[in-house]
């Protein structure tokens, strides 16, 4: 029974890994990416006919829905036309969708715009097509410095809070390779996706091995 503590350790770890894998398979996410702007202030107020375009947005993943945080000034929300363009609001249309009116104040609304492929820069425009004024939340212009916001055609020092979603959700486990790819950017030069694969492998082999040896050392 000298090895019993090691068996307990490995059994605990195996149980933990199984639980993590099951949770990872059961957790399905459909968010593709965000502009990375927190909803701290009202970034734009649209009256009927007004249009706000967040331009030069990098698209690292395919998406088919766009989410905005909207304020309605305590009334039923006005309908919005949401369009996706190549690079700027004046560019060719890549996708389009409509948000019906009637949504509540300070709420997040998702709009299907059709499939937009990764690897390009786009503009997302919101246009009020009638009804009362609408506030779109976002933050100061420094929040997304590479992506300007234009309101009624003029550049304003604000950015919109935008979240992009895929058509089909993926389990967390299926997304692990993509997560490792993303986590290898803005890192020390020698770090790549391989580093995370190696760390994950070592975490479930080297670490329990070392701890098992520590426990085995108690019986000597």
């Amino acid at each position: 029974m000298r090895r019993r503590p090691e068996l307990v350790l490995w059994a605990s770890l195996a149980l933990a890994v199984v639980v993590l894998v099951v949770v990872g398979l059961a957790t399905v996410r459909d968010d593709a990416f965000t502009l990375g702007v927190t909803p701290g202030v009202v970034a734009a107020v649209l009256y009927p006919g007004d249009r706000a375009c967040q331009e030069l947005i990098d698209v690292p993943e395919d998406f088919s829905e766009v989410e905005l945080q909207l304020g309605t000034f305590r009334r039923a929300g006005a309908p919005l036309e949401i369009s996706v363009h190549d690079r700027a609001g004046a560019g060719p249309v890549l996708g389009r969708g409509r948000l019906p009116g009637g949504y509540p104040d300070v709420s997040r609304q998702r709009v299907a715009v059709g499939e937009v492929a990764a690897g390009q820069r786009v503009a997302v425009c919101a246009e009020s097509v009638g009804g009362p004024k609408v506030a779109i939340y976002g933050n100061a212009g420094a929040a997304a410095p590479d992506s300007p916001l234009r309101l009624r055609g003029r550049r304003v020092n604000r950015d919109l809070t935008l979240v992009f979603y895929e058509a089909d959700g993926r389990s967390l486990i299926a997304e692990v390779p993509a997560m490792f790819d993303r986590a290898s950017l803005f890192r020390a030069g020698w770090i790549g996706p391989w580093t995370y694969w190696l760390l994950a492998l070592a975490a479930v082999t080297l670490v329990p091995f070392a701890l098992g040896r520590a426990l085995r050392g108690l019986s000597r």
Partner: protein
Amino acid sequence: MPAPLAWLLVAVAFLGVAWAILTPAWQAPDENSHFAYVQVLAERFDLPGDGDHPIYSTEQARAMEAVNADQVAGFPETKPQWSEEAFERWRASGADPPERLRADGGGPNPAGSNPPLYYLYAGLGYRAAAGGDIFDRLLAVRLVGLLWPLLVTVGVWLLAGELFGRDRTLQLAAAALAGLLPMLSFVSASINPDGMLYATWTFFLWLGVRALRRGLDLPTAAGLALVTGVALVVKGTSYALLPALALVLVIGLWRLRRRSTARLVALVGSVLLALAVTVGVWTALARSLDRTASGQLVGTGSDAVALNVKQLASYLWQFYFPRLPSLEPFPLSTEQPVYDIFAKGVWGAYGWLEIGLPEPLYIVLAVLTLAMLGAAGYALLRSPRRIDLPIALFLLLVTGALLAGLHWTEYHYVLAGNVNFMQGRYLFPLIGLGGAALAKALTLVPSSRRPSVLAGVIGLLLALQLYGMGLVLERFYA
């Protein structure tokens, strides 16, 4: 080195490296400010606080902007930049700035009130990677900081050895809790003086117990004072060590009162010398630079609020217990601070604290913690005659002084209109006592079964480590 400790250190080191690599740049508490402090010290050999400079260098500001660090910090709904095009744009324009853009920070910095010792040490990592870009240097600084959790682990092993004798199972239990606690690994693997603070406090606990148990000899006295002095030059929190240091010296010298005067003088001299070469040098240097030696204790300056003892007592009650109807509500940031801040903060609040564990898991871990502390208390009281009163007093004094300092600060901080001072990680200087409590609780288990129970505890800690890393990966990159 005993094999169990050596293998434990291998695991602690690996987990530290994993956290250092995994955590996105500037996504640990105050890491942006601490990095700015390291950078100005390493680039210009200057301290932050010059009002003519911005807090961050141009290089750091551009990199933080490129990776979207400010918008991501504390807000789970925003993600760091992960577009390859954006990364390539940053590489083309900001990855290799002229040296002056690395060194033009150093303005008033929230971390600037900390003494410079940790930052000087961290600067070694920065300089070692000076040829790389800012992310190379940031990782290098994190990696050199991994010395501290290793020293914490060794220190807790030694402390348990003093408290329980040469019992490898109990020593491993105590050291494993300290070395494998996920939140401690996470904090220690970020750029933050707290890791060094935990190490100095852990060695202080060990040397204090050693001095009280074996008698005050010259190396122990000098070591204890040296560790205290170093801790004081790491963070002002360490002034809480001074009452316990005084206690050890008074008891130690009292016990030696019949020894030769020369020996007593040598002991006192070594203590004074150790304090002089550490905190003494820094205090003199700070004065010559017209700086304070450490951040002023909140509530003692010109903005101090008049002390209201009844209100202070009410605040303390409301921190630990549900508010009684007779008590005026104190504006704390949460309804159950002891649980929401201490329990959750100790067991896992990653990133800028926004990444938490599921609520049921927190409850289970809080119950396990209470059970462990209860079992340790029961084991202690089962044989009250074996309690060493001076050691108990010493440990209570260290604990009480830390908590008193934290609560005094928070009380005044909140009254000044601020929120969110207290953090679970502020308890980690006492991690040695946490490890000792686990070891003591383990003494209730028959000796033959202790290794298996310990294996279960280690398995749980390792599982929490993996889960914590998974949560961080999901929060930032899913």
